[in-house]
């Protein structure tokens, strides 16, 4: 049994994983990062449009600050998120952008003077100040009141990931490529690392660590069509779930992005609409203002995706051999803009659709895009129930996004959570809490279990075919656990997914080599994926309300009275075919922003009994504070600064505060 010891094991080398590794390594801790693929191939690279941070440099971002970003994020989440975490996040996001600027990300900059832009289908002139010239600029995104999304053309994730990848090389961080964590090693509520398989040689090893961090992204690939990279199979979440101890939060909260191309399901950035692009129907009619007169194309993603589907159901979609779609029109932006600021979109249209988006409309349809749910953690990033296990980024339910994430907040979350969580990991590793007292017999037990799991698959002549079962799972998820959900379909989904899980125990494979073997990999991943799918489907079936991206046609109201709570899923016993669900209430009486109308979408909430009292209390605090500065008012409403690592508590300077120019 090959055994490796380290201080911190990070599983996943996308933006969240790499930023975590850089953070802990700065504290002198020994770090190993595992990645299924070369780090720079991680799915973070596919993030196009940008990351939100309230720098407020550009003319359309003036007056922006943490307060506005916070409120947008809470409204976006449909009040499902953790408001203290949201505060930690919005406070740290400007620091993250500035840190990355120092490390080399070529953020687009403000250019002083007049420039043309398209807002609400009209050409307007925006005048940038000379004071802001050369500072980081921002574009508009959905569900935000200010232009807040910092970007590098439409290759933001790429530029960020390559910068962090090169920083990791500079710092000598050990990133092991083509290595897959198969199972967490844990005992008595404490995680000690993972059993790891080399995807080339097939060799198993055990990595023992004081702290283990899962930063392995989302599970989009349980759906038949997803914008996610094909490695986004939820393996990290499944591994946590399979401990029987760690909890997954809000797995039913699944985001569908409004504009993926048809049929390939490849994303075109929200920046298309942020920059002024329009949605059109079969008649060429711009339909979003009919549904959302205020935010139009730039309501939050859950709302736009639902409105699009609603419009298609009315027969206004464009027929195609791949089903109905709508049009995304960015011709209104002009060729120069498309070729400079939306060049990935242009390439995607050219190669996958054979069209020029500066001239022609793009066929789009809402497509699975993001998992708000994940490994439930405290604000420190540590699992609520499994000590020594941390998670951040999309793999985690920290819970910044609640039931709907705003565009530009996930890329921001990866690096912000990496910054914050790495400080807490370091603190943990430097305390005696993290001492390892684990018998080698226990390590051997986990190692053996994984070894025999693989051996039995290699020996199995079972009748079930992995690719068939997998395809069926993907179809069920898209057909029955999609944008519009009903109790009946969810019942069917849960039933059939359970059958698939049972059948997955009888998979036979044809390729019998223990080394590089894609069929074997698909076979050992599938049961975990099915368990994740069951967490999503069962969570959705039980949640008899509509909140954010979770929409029940049979329960269309947001029901704060009964459902202002987070779903928690655990997998108690390997023999189970369903997760065990539990709920964690959200406390209205401590919210800075009590539940209300989002400002877009349908207004239909059933109010929580504490909401009126809390609203009155908030009003009272605000009037008592009178003319106090906004930081003092905020601290009186909902203190959060004490939750942040000291390193990140400083106030963020903005142009309006600086007197040096």
């Amino acid at each position, binding site marked *: 049994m090959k055994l490796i010891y380290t201080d911190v094991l990070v599983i996943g080398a996308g933006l969240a994983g790499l930023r975590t590794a850089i953070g802990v390594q700065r504290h002198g801790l020994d770090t190993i990062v595992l990645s299924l*693929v*070369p*780090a*720079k*191939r991680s*799915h973070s*690279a*596919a993030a196009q449009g940008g990351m939100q941070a309230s720098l407020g440099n550009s003319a359309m971002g003036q007056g922006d600050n943490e307060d506005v970003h916070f409120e947008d994020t809470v409204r976006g989440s449909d009040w499902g998120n953790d408001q203290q975490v949201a505060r930690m996040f919005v406070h740290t996001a400007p*620091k993250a*952008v*500035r840190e990355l*600027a*120092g*490390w*080399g990300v*070529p*953020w*687009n*900059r*403000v250019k002083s003077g007049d420039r043309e832009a398209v807002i609400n289908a009209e050409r307007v002139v925006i005048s940038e100040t000379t004071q802001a*010239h*050369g*500072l980081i*600029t921002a574009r508009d995104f959905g569900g935000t009141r200010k232009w807040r999304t910092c970007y*590098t*053309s439409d*290759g933001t994730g*790429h*530029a960020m990931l*390559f910068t962090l990848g*090169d920083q990791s*090389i500079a710092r000598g961080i050990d*990133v092991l*490529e*083509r290595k897959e964590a198969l199972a967490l090693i844990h005992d008595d509520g404490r995680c000690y690392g993972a059993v790891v398989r080399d995807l*080339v*040689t097939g060799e198993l090893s055990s990595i023992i660590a004081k702290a283990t961090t899962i930063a392995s992204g989302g599970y989009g690939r349980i759906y038949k*069509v997803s914008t996610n*990279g*094909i490695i986004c199979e939820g393996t990290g979440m499944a591994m946590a779930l399979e401990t029987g101890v760690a909890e997954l939060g809000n797995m039913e909260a699944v985001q569908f992005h409004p504009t993926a191309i048809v*049929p*390939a*399901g*490849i994303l075109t950035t929200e920046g298309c609409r942020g920059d002024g692009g329009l949605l059109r129907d079969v008649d060429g009619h711009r339909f979003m203002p009919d549904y959302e007169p205020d935010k139009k194309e730039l309501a939050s993603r859950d709302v736009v995706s639902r409105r699009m589907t609603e419009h298609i159901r009315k027969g206004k979609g464009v027929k195609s*051999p*791949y089903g109905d779609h709508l049009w995304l029109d960015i011709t209104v932006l002009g060729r120069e803009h498309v070729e400079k600021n939306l060049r990935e979109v242009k*390439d995607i249209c050219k*190669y*996958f659709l*054979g069209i020029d988006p500066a001239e022609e409309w793009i066929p789009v349809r809402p497509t699975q895009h993001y998992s708000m749910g994940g490994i439930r953690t405290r604000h420190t990033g540590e699992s609520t129930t499994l000590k020594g296990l941390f998670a951040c980024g999309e793999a985690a339910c920290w819970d910044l996004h609640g039931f709907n994430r705003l565009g530009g907040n996930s890329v921001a979350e990866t690096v912000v959570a990496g910054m914050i969580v790495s400080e807490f990991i370091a603190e943990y590793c430097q305390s005696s809490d993290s001492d390892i007292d684990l018998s080698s017999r226990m390590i051997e037990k986990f190692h053996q279990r994984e070894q025999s799991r693989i051996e039995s698959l290699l020996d199995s002549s079972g009748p079930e075919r992995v*690719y068939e079962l997998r395809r069926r799972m*993907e179809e069920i998820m898209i057909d029955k656990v999609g944008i519009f959900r009903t109790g009946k379909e969810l019942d069917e989904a849960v039933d059939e997914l359970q059958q698939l899980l049972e059948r997955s125990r009888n998979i036979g*494979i044809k390729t019998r*080599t223990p*080394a*590089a073997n*894609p069929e074997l990999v698909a076979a050992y991943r599938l049961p975990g994926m099915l368990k994740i799918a069951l967490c999503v489907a069962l969570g959705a079936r039980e949640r008899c309300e509509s909140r954010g991206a979770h929409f029940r046609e049979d329960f269309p109201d947001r029901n704060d009275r009964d459902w202002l709570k987070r779903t928690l899923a655990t997998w108690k016993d390997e023999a189970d075919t369903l997760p065990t669900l539990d709920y964690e209430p959200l406390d209205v009486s401590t919210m800075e922003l009590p539940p209300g109308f989002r400002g877009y979408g349908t207004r239909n909430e059933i109010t929580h009994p504490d909401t009126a009292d809390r609203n009155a209390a908030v009003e009272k605090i605000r009037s008592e504070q009178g003319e106090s500065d906004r930081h003092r008012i905020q601290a009186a409403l909902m203190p959060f600064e004490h939750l942040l690592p000291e390193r990140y508590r*400083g106030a963020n*300077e*903005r142009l309006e505060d600086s007197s040096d120019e």
Partner: protein
Amino acid sequence: MNDTAPTEKATRRLVINILRHNPQDPQSEARMQRFELDEAPGMTLFIALNAIRNHQAPSLQFDFVCRAGICGSCGMLINGRPGLACRTLTAGLDAEITLAPLPVFKLIGDLSVDTGSWMQAMGERLETWVHSQSEADIDRLEERMEPELAEEIYELDRCIECGCCVAACGTARMREDFVGAVGINKLARFRLDPRDERQDPDFYELIGDDDGVFGCMSLLACNDVCPKELPLQTQLAFMRRKMAFTK
């Protein structure tokens, strides 16, 4: 696995010949294997290869991640020319297609090669990161940069390290340690970046030899095959001129 299209009308029967070899298996010998499948509208090599793996050859190895031409995982020789398989539509190719792994890089198996270690080694050797003595104060306003300069840096920063330029490079075939267009372009990117405090003599130390700019034979296939259409020819010439005048 994904995105299979409903068939519209009579479609072509594709023949895909794949160079197969598994170095992990001592019995394995390199061989061409022939597969046939029906073309579907909008079919890419990503779709075709997955269909082959799912129905005909479950052991077939290849690498895809984003399948959108963004991540650079799927470089391979498509009818002898390096390119990204994910965004190559079969409709643009003859009905008989030949696929082989990228040369120069270590073979993992079939169409999968180890570009990761190569790029990592290149990055370590050329120190492809911003060298700065000072750490930015992240609570304060960021350093300013001219908007046009930021765009110029991004233009070179768009490299996805797919390895196509290296696989197409005559020099890389002859010189094992040649840094390739990818390496030279990276240094051109950092040279342009005012945040990087290195000067030309520093860059000369890294690429001022035959494994760097002076090894390039100017065959420029790199420029022809780059999937991101980076201005590699210009950058190679520019860096060579700068280095020639250094020392």
